[in-house]
């Protein structure tokens, strides 16, 4: 029982911690924090690291708690929703989520799409998800299971940033010396309140869907925030809603991802699957009978999550001030430390030196992207979602006997594609309208 709670705690705790390195160092610890880098790191560069960290902590707490509350009240009712997502629905969700985030996030849609395509290509290295054959490995054994997400993310985000910083060494140092207000101001709070709320709602529902729920929820939340914002041009330049929304979403998703496990016995992601295995070995079968057969496990896990969320807030808030001071550390001191940690980090994942070379390679690539003004976000996100998109698309086509109609004949899938079509047409119309209405 304590072991299960420990594992659950590590799982949602890491979702919490992922934001810290994203904001301070532009290093996303896990896929769901990639979006946080976009505005969070920009905020830190402007001396608003404290505000970003503070709002991430508060947003996470609020979302986590509402998520657990939702789970306590509606777990069984929502469980059926999770099952309704088969391969075609997952495909549409992942594609629509990715396209929304890519086309709405960066400054240039074309560049975003180029990055997305590159991310998808990188994701195709390694194992073919359907036939199980290796692709594009060129006989390199280390490439057979594909590139590692953490190595890629640390390379293009973290190392790329440092390499770019080396080019403008003195400028970077000046930019980080002003720390500014450590806490979120009232204005910040007013701006992000609704973002937290919307993020929570998106995260709660997306988290229930098995596989990749947290990542997609952060993407969708970011896109939604930009769409409803009064000043969408601030996004990508350090908009606090761009941190508050996605961070809330991924935490709500990490709470609600327990729902399929506890009510249906279905593990939605790798971390939850570990908990699933631990329960089974103890002779406890997670599923619809869990509440009756082992109420102490069901309610124990939920109760521990309430306490865990409070603990995370208590542990994190006092640290916000301290973390924010980190941005004062001169670049010359910070850079080698970051390089050291990224190298150790990527080596320790699989214990192979090959990953260090790929890390450095991706770092140089990230530097190039910065010089050419390409956003690395869409690349990394496409890389994460690529395998899911490919596998679910091919599974769907096997199911339909090769007919693409399967994506539009199933209600949930159709609704998702329809929603995106409306948004895309609206966006295009807006651009056209602006171009012709403003005299040049």
């Amino acid at each position: 029982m304590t072991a299960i709670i420990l594992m659950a705690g590590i799982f949602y705790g890491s979702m919490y911690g992922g934001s810290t390195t994203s904001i301070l160092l532009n290093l996303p610890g896990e896929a769901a924090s990639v979006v946080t880098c976009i505005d969070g790191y920009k905020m830190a560069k402007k001396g608003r690291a404290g505000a970003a960290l503070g709002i991430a902590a508060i947003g996470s707490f609020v979302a986590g708690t509402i998520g657990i509350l939702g789970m306590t009240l509606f777990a069984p009712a929502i469980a059926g929703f999770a099952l309704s997502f088969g391969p075609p629905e997952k495909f549409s969700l992942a594609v629509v989520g990715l396209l929304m985030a890519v086309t709405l996030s960066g400054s240039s849609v074309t560049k975003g799409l180029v990055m997305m395509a590159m991310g998808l290509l990188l994701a195709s290295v390694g194992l073919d998800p359907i036939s199980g054959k290796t692709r594009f490995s060129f006989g390199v054994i280390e490439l057979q299971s594909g590139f590692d997400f953490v190595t890629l993310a640390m390379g293009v985000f973290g190392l790329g940033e440092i390499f770019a910083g080396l080019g403008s060494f003195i400028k970077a140092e000046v930019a980080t010396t002003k720390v500014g207000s450590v806490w979120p101001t009232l204005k910040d709070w007013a701006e992000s309140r609704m973002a937290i709320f919307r993020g929570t709602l998106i995260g709660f529902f997306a988290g229930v869907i098995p596989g990749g729920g947290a990542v997609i929820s952060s993407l969708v939340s970011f896109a939604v925030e930009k769409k409803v914002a009064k000043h969408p041009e601030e996004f990508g330049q350090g908009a606090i809603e761009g941190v508050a929304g996605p961070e809330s979403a991924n935490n709500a998703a990490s709470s609600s991802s327990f729902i399929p496990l506890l009510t249906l016995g279905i593990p939605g992601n790798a971390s939850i699957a570990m908990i699933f295995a631990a329960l089974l070995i103890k002779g406890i079968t997670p599923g619809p009978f869990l509440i009756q057969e082992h109420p102490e496990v069901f309610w124990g896990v939920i109760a521990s999550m309430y306490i865990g969320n409070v603990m995370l807030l208590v542990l994190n808030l006092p640290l916000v001030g301290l973390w924010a001071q980190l941005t004062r550390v001169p670049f010359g001191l910070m850079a080698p430390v970051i390089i050291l940690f990224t190298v150790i980090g990527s080596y320790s994942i699989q214990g192979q030196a090959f990953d260090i070379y790929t890390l450095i390679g991706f770092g140089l690539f990230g530097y190039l992207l910065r010089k050419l003004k390409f956003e690395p976000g869409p690349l990394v996100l496409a890389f994460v979602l690529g395998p899911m998109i490919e596998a679910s698309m091919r599974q769907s086509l096997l199911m339909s006997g090769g007919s693409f109609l399967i994506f539009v004949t199933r209600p949930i899938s159709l609704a998702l594609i329809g929603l995106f079509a409306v948004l895309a047409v609206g966006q295009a119309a807006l651009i056209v309208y602006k171009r012709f209405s403003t005299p040049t």
Partner: protein
Amino acid sequence: MKRFTAVLAVMLLASFLVPAVSMAADAYPSKPVAGMVPMKPGGSTDLMARAIEKYWIKYSSQPMVIVNKPGGGVVGTEGVVRSKPDGYTLYLGYGSGHDIVMPSLQKMPYDPQKDLIPVARVSIHSVAIVTGAKSQFNSIKDLAAWSKKEGKPITTAVSVKAGAVDLALTAFGKAAGVNIVTVPFSGGAEAATALAGGHLMIGGGHPSEVIPHIKAGRFKALAVVLPQRDPSLPDVPTLKEQGIDVATWGSVKGVAAPAGTPKEVIQYLEGTLKKVCEDPEFRKTMENLSQPVMYQGSEEFGKFLKQATADYAEIIKRLNITIN
């Protein structure tokens, strides 16, 4: 700037040196043993591995650490094949579909017989053919009748391509004249989830993957693809009982070490696994996971694998099964 670069270089160097220090050799085992599971967590192989991990420490001075390396089975297994044959990297799940079925269907990057040394067999479990509880199919006969009448393919969830489950279902389709289209997922847990959502017509899975769903009233079992009934599904008839001449070895789950591992290390591992397999609590745990313990020592297991591989090759040839 110069000093900074120097410090950087030293740090980088230092980080490269870390692994070299920890490679001191002592009496085996002097450090934790990595148990590689070439599948996602939560599937049948992973469950067996975690059960072994739990009881291993009772009989060994060093713990076993489970490492999941998903990728259709082949990638993780090849990782073990290419690893140092020092007994610190083991393959858990030896005897799975990609070891004894796949070699008869496609070219392998390694030889599952020659590049691995069998340590011990832990369990054999069957493949069950299941369908949603609300499905119109109540028996194998219904499936065949529907397929003949409608002429449409029957979509089938399987754990991985060319694995034991995929083969069992494809062989069934060929023998019964049913148009089976297998849709592979990444592991049995994911395949069962998709079937539970009603996205496919039928599915195949190991008892540990489907029994929780049967108990929850979401699945019903139509047949077991073994020569005799499975003790964990005593009410489910075999395919042979239903008039279809297809029986497979199901899925065999054992432990292997890379070729070249010293003999005394293999003996130590075999002995330790024997003790684990004789532990009554371990047996009980495995029973709860619907994976009955069927221990075999290194030599016997090697002979068994040869036989099983030949049997699968025979079925594949007889039914003219190809997978692309």
